[in-house]
């Protein structure tokens, strides 16, 4: 194919051109996919005596992903020891070591994601040229669109090695009867190395004779927790437990990165071989927490329970004057079924009422988010290093606080049905929000404590044993959560991407241009001009975004389960569902761009496009280099109904009968089949994306959740 275009283009003399028959038809996605295979082996043993108990295990896991080249291999081992040094002193140490080798691809909508690339490359582009080399004749039209099959053949690489040592050490000393001191230390050492290579012939390294980079990340996270507990019972009915403690935590993350160009040979894989060093940098990021806390529990005769707790947390992330937050909670419960007046009621096995109220804090922000900075990272000009305003400071930045009230009832009746009904009301104040500001400041947003939000809802869980026979049992269960989310206070409403943040509205309310379909006569896109929906227009300059009355928050969600057992055979099925949550396909403006990004290809939904006057379709006219803005982002054209029911897990297992096992000297043996995501029903029959998405409802990757089927054997010796 060298020298010949993938398809002949002949000008028709009147400003247009006609296309010949393509020389090849490459189904890129098929070429990039395969059936994956997972293998997992575990071995464990445990034992001990009065002074020492132990548990040790080793495991191996290998996953060949359903995308060529992508795989993961992990070795891990674990040793847990518990030593009773003397009657009052006990030590435990749990050590977990793992090493993971992984190779694969980037996710998300980037050229560097070969799968995304596979959607964008036209089928007229061949995989190999006449010499049998990976084809690169399209590279000037698809700058980043390097032959993804070639890239994943090993000519490019992206490899990770992750080594992790996690150790938890505790010492527990009983100072006096009922008074215990416990010191717990957790060390988590994570070493993460990445090697990245782009080849010199058809890859991103072609202008630099090959490009390779290596980065090493070392993360150390330690937590030390010291607690003193005192427990005592009086008169056999007053039971008390008091706890006081201090916890310190620090995490540091150091990165070293180097890159080099001009590689003498494509199979060399360390920077030492490359002729030209290109980049070298390192960075360090840290955070720390420091907390004092106390807790008291009291119960009367195992019937009435009262708990109270208080803590003072400090975080390095907040402004120097606002680092500390004080949080507390109180709760109580009453086990009615232990009262005399209910003990005689045979139908009621358990009945408990409970309520609690508490305040918690959230510090889920960047490590130096409160500090105004002048940044030197990656800033240079003409060979000199420079500095720029990096971040606006906010010394008032402080903890986000959530006040949560819970009340509920737990029960079991007729020795068959149990359940929990719980009401929750959670009001979060001082919300940590990145609020857009005028770009004339030189910045696009400022992190602020900017408002309050309320989540109220009801959560119901029910399980019933329908048949409880000797050989045959059948149980069903289900849970449902009704959720209502409202922003209760906001300094000023604002727009965050596809969403509107406005008082009185759901936090995930979409703020969009509303799609009014395809003009059947012209194939042009149409939108409603404003929220009155009285007029439509094909011009983006006539339309505005508004609250379209849909949210990414589901109206309700939950799951249900059923299990059947007959002798050694057992079937477990677990379903999940979600209702009235809306998804925004953020990949669609490119993958269904109606020709806006030609010569990039399209998904097969383009086959439904408008072609002739009178065609009724949701896909507008396709035009080479389309500028009709039909692929306008933040438009409900790409908003999809995420309502679905999914068979998350199906497990069929068989326990070999003990008569058989004793003959071969095994304690237990079980064979099983497990299927994950095997079946999904969606309210929108044409839904083409995976209905499970992040809370925000945004779908950023064309890669769906995996459907996996596995078989396994568990043997107990």
């Amino acid at each position, binding site marked *: 194919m060298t020298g010949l275009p993938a398809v002949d283009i002949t000008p028709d003399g009147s400003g247009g051109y006609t296309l010949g028959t393509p020389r090849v038809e490459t189904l890129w996605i098929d070429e990039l996919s395969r059936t994956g295979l997972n293998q997992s082996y575990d071995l464990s043993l445990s034992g001990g005596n009065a002074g020492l108990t132990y548990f040790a295990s080793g495991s191996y896991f290998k996953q060949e992903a359903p995308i060529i080249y992508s795989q993961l291999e992990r070795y891990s081992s674990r040793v847990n020891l518990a030593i009773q040094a003397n009657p009052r002193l006990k030590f435990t140490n749990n050590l977990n070591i793992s090493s993971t080798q992984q190779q694969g691809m980037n996710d998300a909508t980037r050229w560097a994601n070969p799968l995304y690339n596979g959607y964008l490359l036209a089928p007229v582009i061949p995989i190999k040229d006449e010499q049998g080399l990976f084809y690169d004749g399209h590279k000037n039209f698809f700058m980043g669109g390097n032959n993804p099959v070639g890239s994943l053949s090993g000519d490019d690489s992206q490899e990770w090695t992750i080594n992790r040592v996690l150790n938890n050490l505790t010492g527990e000393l009983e100072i006096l009867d009922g008074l215990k001191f416990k010191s717990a230390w957790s060390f988590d050492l994570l070493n993460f190395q990445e090697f990245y290579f782009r080849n010199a012939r058809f890859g991103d390294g072609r202008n630099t004779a090959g490009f390779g980079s290596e980065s090493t990340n070392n993360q150390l996270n330690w937590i030390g927790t010291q607690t003193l507990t005192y427990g005592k019972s009086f008169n056999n009915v007053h039971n008390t437990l008091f706890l006081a403690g201090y916890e310190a935590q620090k995490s540091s993350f150091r990165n070293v990165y180097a890159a080099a160009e001009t590689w003498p040979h494509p199979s060399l894989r360390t920077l030492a071989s490359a002729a030209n060093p290109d980049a070298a940098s390192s960075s360090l990021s840290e955070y720390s927490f420091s907390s004092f806390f106390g807790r008291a529990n009291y119960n009367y005769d195992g019937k009435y329970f009262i708990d109270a707790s208080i803590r003072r947390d400090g975080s390095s992330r907040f402004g120097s004057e606002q*680092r500390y937050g004080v949080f507390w909670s109180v709760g109580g419960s009453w086990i009615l079924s232990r009262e005399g007046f209910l003990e005689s009621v045979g139908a009621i096995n358990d009945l408990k009422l409970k309520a609690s109220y508490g305040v918690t804090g959230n510090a889920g922000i960047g490590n130096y988010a409160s500090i105004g900075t002048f940044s*030197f990272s990656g800033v240079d000009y*003409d060979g000199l290093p420079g500095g720029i*305003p990096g971040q606006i400071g906010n010394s008032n930045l402080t903890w986000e606080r959530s006040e949560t009230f819970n009340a509920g009832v737990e029960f079991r009746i007729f020795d068959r049905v149990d359940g929990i009904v719980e009401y929750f009301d959670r009001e979060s104040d001082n919300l940590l929000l990145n609020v857009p500001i005028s770009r004339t400041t030189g910045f696009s947003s400022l992190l602020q404590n900017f408002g309050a939000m309320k989540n109220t809802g009801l959560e119901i869980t029910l399980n019933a044993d329908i048949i409880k026979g000797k050989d045959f049992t059948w149980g069903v269960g289900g849970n449902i959560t009704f959720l209502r989310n409202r922003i209760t206070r906001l300094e000023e409403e604002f727009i965050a991407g596809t969403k509107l943040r406005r008082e009185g509205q759901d936090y995930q309310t979409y703020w969009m241009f509303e799609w009014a379909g395809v003009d059947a006569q012209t194939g042009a896109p149409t939108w409603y001009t404003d929220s009155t929906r009285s007029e439509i227009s094909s011009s983006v300059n006539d339309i505005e975004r508004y609250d379209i009355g849909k949210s990414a928050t589901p109206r309700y969600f939950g799951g249900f389960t059923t299990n059947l057992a007959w002798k050694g055979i057992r079937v477990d099925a677990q379903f999940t569902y979600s209702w009235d949550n809306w998804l925004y396909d953020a990949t669609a403006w490119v993958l269904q761009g109606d020709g806006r990004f030609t010569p990039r290809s399209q998904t097969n939904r383009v086959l439904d496009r408008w072609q002739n006057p009178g065609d009724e379709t949701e896909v507008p006219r396709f035009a080479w280099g389309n500028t009709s*803005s039909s692929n306008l982002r933040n438009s409900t054209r790409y908003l999809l109904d995420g309502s679905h029911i999914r068979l998350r897990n199906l497990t069929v297992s068989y326990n070999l009968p003990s008569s058989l096992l004793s003959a071969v000297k095994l304690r237990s043996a079980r064979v099983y089949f497990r299927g994950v995501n095997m079946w999904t029903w969606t309210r929108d029959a044409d839904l083409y994306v995976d209905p499970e998405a992040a809370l925000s409802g945004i779908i950023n990757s064309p890669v769906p959740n995996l459907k996996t089927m596995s078989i396994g054997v568990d043997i107990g010796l």
Partner: protein
Amino acid sequence: MKKYLYMMLLVVFSAACSAEFLNLQPNEALPTENAIQSIDDLTSAIIGVYSGLQSSDHYGRYFVLVPDVMSDDVKQNASANRAKEYAEFEAFSEHFITQNMWARLYSTINRANVVINNTLEVTDAAQDEKSQIEGEAYAIRALCHFDLVRIYGQHYGFTGDNSHLGVPIITEFDEDGEPSRNTVAQVYQQVISDLTTAIDKMGDDFSSTRMSKVAAQALLARVNLYMGEYAAAANLADAVISSGEVGLGTSGDYLDSWANGTSPDPIFEISYSANDNNGSDALGRMYIIDGYGDYLPSADLLNLIDTADLRSNLFKFDGNLGGIFGDLRVDKFPSVIGTDNFPVIRLSEIYMIRAEARYRTGNETGAQADVDAIRQRAWPTAAAVTATGTALLDEIEKEKRVELMFEGHRLWDLMRWQRGVTRTDCTAPTSACDVAYPNDRFILPMPQNEIDANPNIAQNPGY
């Protein structure tokens, strides 16, 4: 037992250390209040300002590309993509170029304001250096405001008193600021004031990759030309030319200078090195064969260039094109890794500014000489210009168009001459082939994300 108690206390108190434990500072940045404490810090800050100009949303690509694809010098290839809405006058307020360019230029202005508003006290010995750095920042702040008002506002002279909307003038950082748009008259006044301050503050040192006194004078000459202040423009052009800092160079070096990633006569150019990793973000990549190849030279432009003119070699044959797309690619910025410096202003433009200013002030001989200086450098056998009157103006226009092609000047000239865009070699839809003046679509809309965050910003008419 006591032994354990002591151990326990030790553990508790060693962990429960002071507030220092929570006092962590970033390692790749300094707290803002400590940022500028020495002349070296001020040097870092001005380097940061220059690095803003490098961005692909400014001189790296789009600020140059967008006005060119809106003009009659450039036509679209079949694979045209990134700036397509602009080439077809279909821009909209949420388009990424419209939004990002605005944010980028104001970010650079903010960086310049850090330098300008510094409170650093230095020794007498360092006073000149401090003054020089501040002068550079003033000149760049002027350049950014000037660029913003050119692309987001109608040209100077669009209304009699220039009371039509320009862009907000930002001279101080205010995180709560929600400024409204200043008029074009006010923005030009600020630009002139900043350039004048810059000229006062800077010394005589010259380096083409940095702002200099000569560069500020050159920019001021351009601003005066755009305002129709021809005498002032001619005087400033005289000052730049007579400064001797930059020469026109020779015919022999003309093509080499472009091939080597610079230009024949840069007064202020943005430096790009392999370190900047500009690569696929570079302006040249939009044109060259080994790039995206989105945009092609129009026959309207090519027909103005004689085969004996060296500038006809700033194109490269591409047999894969053909038909309506022709067979030539632009090769003025040839680096595949994006290491071509970009000339923000160069001496050729100063000659053309002076030619037009001289013509407008009745000095036709001088205007002819200026055209000849530029034309005969690239085309040594060309006859001297003898045309007078409007025929001379046509020669000035033609020469400026050819010499400064693909450097982002043509659209601004058409607008201030109050002419539309007429493309006879047009690969865009016919609606974009003949676009009359005046036109709402010759400028970009206000970015939607700015309007959303700042209610004081009024949208441009027609958007």
